[in-house]
């Protein structure tokens, strides 16, 4: 089981409660599709992903970004059993969506950068450490049911 310090628990709740998820989710996914363009392979039916402007303005990308962040919220509310919380989602990403689990890391990095830009100086090294630890646990849980 993952051990969380009081600081880490408080930081995760604080960061996510202040987060504008309607903005952060879409921005993080769009950034992932732009910075790591091979991730576009999973979104063949999303229409125009031709350039950065198209991706940033694509409504399907925005909608899916919100979905992904909604999924993260489940981990925020169940920090003591992220593994169990994500078991079904892990099977889904493996068996149905066929997403390379390394791509979770790429999206996680983009999410970190978007949150850093939103929080500015509030994204201190200690907050960054807590946030990245949390995201790493989520990424690990998502990759657990791959066969």
């Amino acid at each position, binding site marked *: 089981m993952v051990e969380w310090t009081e600081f880490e628990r408080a930081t995760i709740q604080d960061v996510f409660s202040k987060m504008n998820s309607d903005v952060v989710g879409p921005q993080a996914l769009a*950034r992932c599709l732009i910075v790591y363009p091979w991730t576009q392979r999973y979104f063949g039916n999303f229409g125009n992903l031709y350039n950065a402007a198209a*991706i940033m303005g694509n409504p399907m990308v925005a909608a899916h970004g919100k979905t992904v962040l909604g999924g993260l919220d489940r981990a925020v509310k169940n920090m003591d059993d992220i593994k169990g919380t994500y078991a079904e989602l892990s099977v889904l990403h493996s068996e149905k969506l066929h997403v390379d689990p390394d791509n979770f890391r790429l999206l996680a990095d983009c999410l970190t*950068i*978007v949150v850093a830009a939103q929080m500015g100086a509030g*994204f201190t*090294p200690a907050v*960054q*450490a807590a946030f*990245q630890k949390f995201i790493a646990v989520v990424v690990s849980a998502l990759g657990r049911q791959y066969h």
Partner: protein
Amino acid sequence: MSLTAKDKAFVKAFWGKISGQADAIGQEALGRMLIVYPQTKIYFSDWSDFSLDSPQVKKHGKTVMSAITDAVGKMDDLTGGLSTLSDLHATKFRIDPVNFKILSHNILVTLAVHFPVDFTAEVHVAVDKFLAAVSAAIADKYR
């Protein structure tokens, strides 16, 4: 994943905006790395202070970031331009190249914190590619 003309243009333009704060960015990126990825401290076992405002972090952050700023002017031949630094890293420092990726990530985080508007997705991909190319050039002489 080589640097296109567009990438080089984005990197040069963005560096023009940040060059005045390069030293501080280097200090913060290094400081973040040492705190968020504590295993990286092993390369600085003789340091006494790993905090963000430690004089050692400040000095070394400036050294590293100055070299990266220099590399902006060498994008047409990074392997050649960074050859001496590569020798140094290969034979003297022997830093495992995985750490170049870690430092690069912390540079990107620092840029996002301080330039949230200018650090657009297009600038992000160009700078990420540039830092990856610099890392490869530094690791060039490793074996």
